[in-house]
Each structure stands twice: as C-alpha cells, then as structure tokens.
C-alpha cells in the first residue's frame, strides 16, 4: 500500500525511483528450483536478459522449460540465457544489475554461493535472496560494505506468477535507496504487492500463517483432517483449507518453517508452533503432501482418501461421517448475498464443540497477528497485506472489522488468549473505526461462501 511502513507514496515517486537506475540483466542462481524458475519467468516480462544458472547447464535448461510452462509463453526463451556455475557464473554475475539467489534453504550452501558472488559482482549490483526464513543480517555478515549495502531479502510466495504478495526485507546495512528502488521495480514492473518486514524468523507472512496451519495439523490428531478442513474452511476467510494448504506447500517445507520459528522465537503461542510428532514419523515413510501424492489427503482417481494421523492409514472420504454443521450452511448462505457481517455473527453465535474449536483457531490468528506488530512489521498494515496478497486469507484486521472490535475481544477472551492492546483500546475508545486501511482491496473476496 502506498505510504505504508516506509513504502514510496506516489506514482511520481515510483517513476523517479525507476529512473534512478536500470535493471537490464538479471542472474538467477538456482534457476532449476521452483522459486528460481518461477521468479526467472517473472523477470523475463520486464528485463531484456535473464540468465538461468544452475549446477549444470542441463539443469538450467530444465528450469527454463519449467518457466515457459509456468507462464505459458514461448517468449520467455527469447530473453533467457542458460549456464552453469562453474563455466558461466563469473561472467554472468559480473555483468548483472541484479543477482537473485534461489538456492536450497541451507545457510552454508547460500553462504558458499555468496562467496563466489562477492568475488565476481560489480560494486553497484543488487543481490537479493528469496529465503523464506534465514536471517538477512546473518546471510551477509562479514561481507564487504558494498555487498551489505546492496543486499536484501525478496521473498516471493509460490507460485510467484499467481501470488503477488512479496516480502521485502532489508538488513541493518542495506542502503535505503536500494530498498526503495527494489520496491518500485517490483511494484511497477513485476506487479508485486510489496510488504516491508523486519528480519525476524519466517518474516511476517509465514510466521503468522504457519502458526495457524500448524495448529490445524495439531488439531488433526484429535478430530481428523476432514473435520479440521471443514471447520476451518472457506467460511472462516480463506479460499484453500489449511491442511490442503500444507499438502500443497509440502510437509517438508512446513516442517522447515515451523521448526525455524519454534527454535528461534519464544512467544505466547510457542506450543502451537511445535510440529506434531506424527508428521515427523509419516515423513519418514514418504508422506510429503501433493508432491508424493500422499499427505492429509490422497486422491486415487476421483476418490479422495483421508489420513488417519494416529495410524498413518487412509480411508475413503465417503465412509467418514462428519457431524451436521448447519451453522456453516447458514454462514455460507449469508456470504453468498455478501452479508458478511451477519455471516460472521452467525459463526460467533454458533453452538457446538466444532464451532468453538474453529473460533479458537480464528481467535489465535487475530491475537497472534496483532501481537506481532512491532516485532515483524512496523504496523498491522503489513501483516494484513501479506495475509491477503500472500496467503489469500482474510487479513486479521478484516476479520476484526467484519465482526466488530467488541466481538473480536470477546472471541479472544473466550479462547483464553492474550488480548492485544490495540483491540482493547478500540473497545474503550471506539477508535479506529476500521483497522484495515488498504481501501483499494475488496474485503468481501476473502469470504468464500462454502
């Protein structure tokens, strides 16, 4: 959002920044990985030459093939050059205006690569890492002044051609002019929705989002995956249900993110970030989500099977019986007429253990997000925008606005969680009238009527 958390405010300012330097050649390191080729494809829209580098030339070519398939344009190839690290890295990096690192999420692997980049790069080139959790400050520690001034995190969400939410993370030494330029470039030419976050574990989006996802995974052990995805379903403000999301992301990625947060933070919701033991055990057997075919759900032809987390067995969805949750139909019916506030009240008033459990998760999401303000972003705006544009979830402020601050506080109190001061204050003073400040966004789109 223009002017939020230090972002450039006007179109004129963006144009001035864009004119301040040129990005004519981008090198993507790790161009055969999902994020590497996805980002490389995006760059070909706006940059005349994009160099796909990987361990071998054939790997880089595979990445190019994937990039072409992902954006469905043969024109990607006309702007792409492929090469491998041993033969081509030095020259490619020396000629690049932007070096985009998308290697595996391993500190030492990235560090070794930055040694090579540092040796070859020009003093004025920008180095961006797409890490989703490693510390930006740690990654550039002990490097030259010019490297640290030009180094930042640019965290795309997968697949980047569909999800525009992008986190921009400056290190302690990053030149503010470089940060502003990268934001202008990403916003104006790559169509990114840029959110500036602090250099904290998993940044803003994954910190808040995976807390909720992991809590859903913990709940699956008690009530089964099918019921979890029903009660924390679209009507709670998301297009994709939580366990289906973990299957899509991959269980191993989920583990990497929550382990990182669990080990490196200690907040009021610490235990909700502990990976359930059954997930660790099942991963050893190759249960990794959609990439291995089996996760919380497994599709055999047209039949969907559901995991029993206790035994690791799967049963066809059709034999599983869910309680009749008529309140969800009532909420969905109200949403289908865009009566979101009334739908939300029906959810808050619904009887039954399932509704109470769902409310607890939503209360946890709102409370956790508001309590991270100052730690992961300057204001709630950044968390709101990344949850909306990165996860396609109703941002916490949108939920509060839709139910009203009084209901939000009651919801959090009933769940036995910490009430963020901003919400208590809103109840006391009536201000702000609305928390969600990005007036460009249709908030109704987050409330799917099912």
């Amino acid at each position, binding site marked *: 959002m223009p002017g939020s958390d230090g972002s450039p405010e006007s179109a004129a300012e963006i144009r001035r920044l864009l004119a301040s330097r040129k990005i004519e050649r981008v090198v993507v390191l790790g161009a055969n990985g999902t994020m590497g080729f996805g980002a490389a494809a995006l760059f070909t829209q706006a940059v005349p030459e994009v160099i796909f580098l990987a361990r071998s030339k054939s790997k880089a070519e595979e990445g190019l093939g994937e990039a072409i398939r992902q954006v469905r344009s043969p024109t990607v190839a006309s702007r792409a050059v492929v090469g491998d690290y041993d033969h081509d890295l030095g020259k490619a990096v020396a000629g690049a205006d932007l070096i985009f690192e998308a290697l595996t999420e391993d500190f030492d692997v990235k560090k070794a690569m930055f040694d090579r980049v540092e040796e070859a790069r020009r003093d004025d080139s920008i180095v961006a890492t797409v890490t989703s959790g490693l510390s930006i400050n740690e990654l550039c520690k002990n490097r030259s002044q010019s490297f640290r001034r030009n180094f930042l995190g640019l965290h795309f969400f997968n697949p980047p051609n569909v999800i525009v939410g992008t986190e921009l993370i400056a290190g302690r030494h990053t030149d503010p002019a470089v940060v502003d330029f990268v934001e202008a470039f990403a916003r104006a030419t790559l*169509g990114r929705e840029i959110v500036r976050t602090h250099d904290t574990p998993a940044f803003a989006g994954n910190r808040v989002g995976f807390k909720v996802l992991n809590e859903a995974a913990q709940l699956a052990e008690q009530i089964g995956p099918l019921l979890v995805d029903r009660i924390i379903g679209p009507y709670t403000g998301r297009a994709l249900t939580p366990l289906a999301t973990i299957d899509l992301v991959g269980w191993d990625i989920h583990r990497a993110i929550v382990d990182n947060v669990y080990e490196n933070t200690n907040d009021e919701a610490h235990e909700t970030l502990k990976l359930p033991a059954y997930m660790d055990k099942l991963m050893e057997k190759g249960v990794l989500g959609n990439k291995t075919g089996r996760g919380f759900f497994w599709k055999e032809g047209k039949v969907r099977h559901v995991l029993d987390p206790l035994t690791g067995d799967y049963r066809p969805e059709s034999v599983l019986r869910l309680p009749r949750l008529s309140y969800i139909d009532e909420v969905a019916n109200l949403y289908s007429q865009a009566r979101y506030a009334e739908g939300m009240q029906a959810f808050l008033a619904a009887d039954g253990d399932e509704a109470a459990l769902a409310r607890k998760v939503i209360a946890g999401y709102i409370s956790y997000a508001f309590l991270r303000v100052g730690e992961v972003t300057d204001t709630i705006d950044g968390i709101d925008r990344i949850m909306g544009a990165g996860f396609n979830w109703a941002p916490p402020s949108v939920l509060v606005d839709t139910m009203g601050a009084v209901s939000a506080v009651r919801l959090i109190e009933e769940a036995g969680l910490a009430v963020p001061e901003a919400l208590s204050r809103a109840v006391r003073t009536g201000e702000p009238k609305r928390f969600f400040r990005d007036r460009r966004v249709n908030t109704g789109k987050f409330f799917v009527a099912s």
Partner: protein
Amino acid sequence: MTAKREVYVLGGYMTDFARNWTKENKHFSALMREAVLGALERTGIAPEEIESAHVGNFAAELYCMQGHLGAFFTEVHPAFSGLPTSRHEAACASGSIALLAAGAEIEAGRYDLQAVVGIEQMKTVSAAQGGSYLGTAAWYDQEAKGVEFPFPKLFGRLGDEYDKRYGLKDEHLAEISKINYANAKKNPNAQTRTWYMNKEHALCRTDDNPAVGGRIRIADCSQVTDGAVCVFLASREYAEKFAKGTGRKLAGIPRIKGWGHHTARLRFDDKVAESKSDRYVLPHVRSTITDAWKRAGIADVSGVDAIETHDCFTTSEYMAIDHFGITEPGESWKAVEAGWLEIDGQHPINPSGGLIGAGHPVGATGVRQLLDATWQVTGEAGDYQVEGARNVQTLNIGGSGTTSVSFIVGV
C-alpha cells in the same frame, strides 16, 4: 450546448475485476451489494441520502437468468426500499447510458444525489456460450448466429478496414496490448495484474496466443470479467454540502464537464459503407468525442490529460487514437511508436489498463471508466496516477462501434 445544471461526481467504488463470483459461490446480488456499500463507505455518504438509482447492465437475463435489476438496488440497504430505480441497456455502453440518464435527471432538477451502478457477471457460462451471448450486441441473426466468437471477428474486420484504407501492422496492435497489460500491473483491481505479457508474447503466433477471429488473437482481446462499479452523481447544491462535509472546496470535486452520445447503424457493413468517403472509419464515434469537447469548452485532445477508452480489442483502441485526433486519420501508429500513449507520455490512454488489462464486465465498463477518470483528477489513482491530470475523457462503445458515449470529467 452547455448543460443547464452541473453534474458532479462524488466518487465511488469498484469490485476487484480478477474475482470469480461463481467460484466464490456468490449470487449476482452480492456483486451489486459490495459495489454500492463500498461506494457509500469510501465516500462517507449515508444511504438515506440517495434519492434515485440507475443500473447499467447488458445481459443478466442470459448470464444469470435474472432481470429487473433496478429493483435489486433496493435489496442493498433497508433505506433504499421505495426509491425510484431503473435499468439501462446498450450492450457494452450500458454503464454510460445509465450515467447519461442519471445526469439528465440531475440537470432537470429532479434529484440531487443519484447512485449509478454498472454491473455484469459473465463467468457463469463457458467461453463459447458467453461469446454467443455477446453476439446479441450485434444484429444477431445477420452477424452472429452460428458464428463462433462473433465479436473478435467483427473487430478483426475493423482492423481489416484500416489495413485497406491506410495500412495496419500487427506490431502496433501488439504494442497497444503490451501497454494496457503493463498499466494493469499497477492497478490493484485489474483482472490481468498477474498475467504474463510482453510485446513478444502479444506478437507470438503459437498456441499460447491463438487466433480467435481474423487478425485478432487472444492478446488483442479484452477479458471475460465479473465486476460491478458504483458512482454517485450529484447536483451543485449537494456537491457543495458534500465538499463542506469532507473539508474540501467545491472546485476540488470533479464534475462532468461534457458528454457525447451517438448511435450508428447496427451492422458493421452498413457502418463501413456509410463512412466510405469520410476521413474517419467510424464518424459517429468521432462526433461523440467532439460533442463532448464542445460541451466542455475544450478545443481538441490537447485539452484532456488522459483518456480511458474502449479497447474491447486492440483494433478499437487503434481506431480511438485517430478518432480522438491524437494523430491524423490512419496514422494512429505514429502515436504508438512515439510512446505517447504510456502513462507518462503526452497522451496517456488507459492508465488503468483499460478493457484489455483491467477487464471488461460489459455493463460495468462505462461506469468504471468514469470512476477511473474521477480518481485521476482527484489524485487517487495510486500507482497508475497520471501526474497532474485535471481533465480526463472516456469513450465507451456498445456493439461494433454502434452506441458511443464519451464523458469529460474534470476539476
């Protein structure tokens, strides 16, 4: 030809054109509700203040099995029950016709504050079925019946007519597409903001950019879109009150300074035959534009700072360039090559992304253009703001150049 009373635009709201309301399991009425409630919230106008409503829509009877759309306005808020409402249809110009009717009632002194809603839900049916419904904007029996995707073919023929009279190169059409898509990336409510496009792609001749009708390829087309837009039009008296209430000066509230409206014969062949000896391929479109200038007291296109035009296909924008007088007839390519059409060029066209980039919910488009014009002149267009825009002109076209409406919004 000066208007008797001035018509002010107090602002409005649009739905995100990337949304698919069928996938969200939402009814047509939800689309209208979000647009109207969003506009009330954004402008701070109380629902009780609205005196009348006009709804522009092309074909809800076909797409949604729903007619009587004016009445749906009363469902949005209890305060609207009993209000005089109506629905207006003129194919892709429906939204502008609703605006004209609302503006005329303000000029006549009947009402001081009107809501105008443009609305279309199109993703309810397959592309082929939708293409056939759109064919009813032509003379269906003679031009569309039994034809797959009739409209791309009709606008392909507009390109052919240019080619015959003046010559036309595909690369100029591709550049028009590229600019619209690039502008859409800056517009948070544009349908194509995440889509992959560049000039090479628009020019590519593979299955990724298939031909859909003559010289028209997918990259030349506007989109199938669900969307609704609501704006509020007001008399000077109400606008003064509104300005005071929002701490502004009346001079800062945009008004409709001029308008034009002409209807040509339905069939494309008849239009072309009529214009055989004219300098302009679609002379009634030209008159629509020049009428708006006259009413606004503007001499020519140098008096407008940006244009939101009807690029249902790249050929219609190509036509608009010379009809606006940015170049001599047949020389639109010069403006394309010179970079004049870009947001920071000397004649920015479709900073929003237009129908190609932002999307084209048929009945909503005219209202969306007027809202974008309003946001431009009040400096509220965000990343697609044209610097210092004070007068912005729209051009909304129904059918194959049949019904044309143009507004000039300025401060």
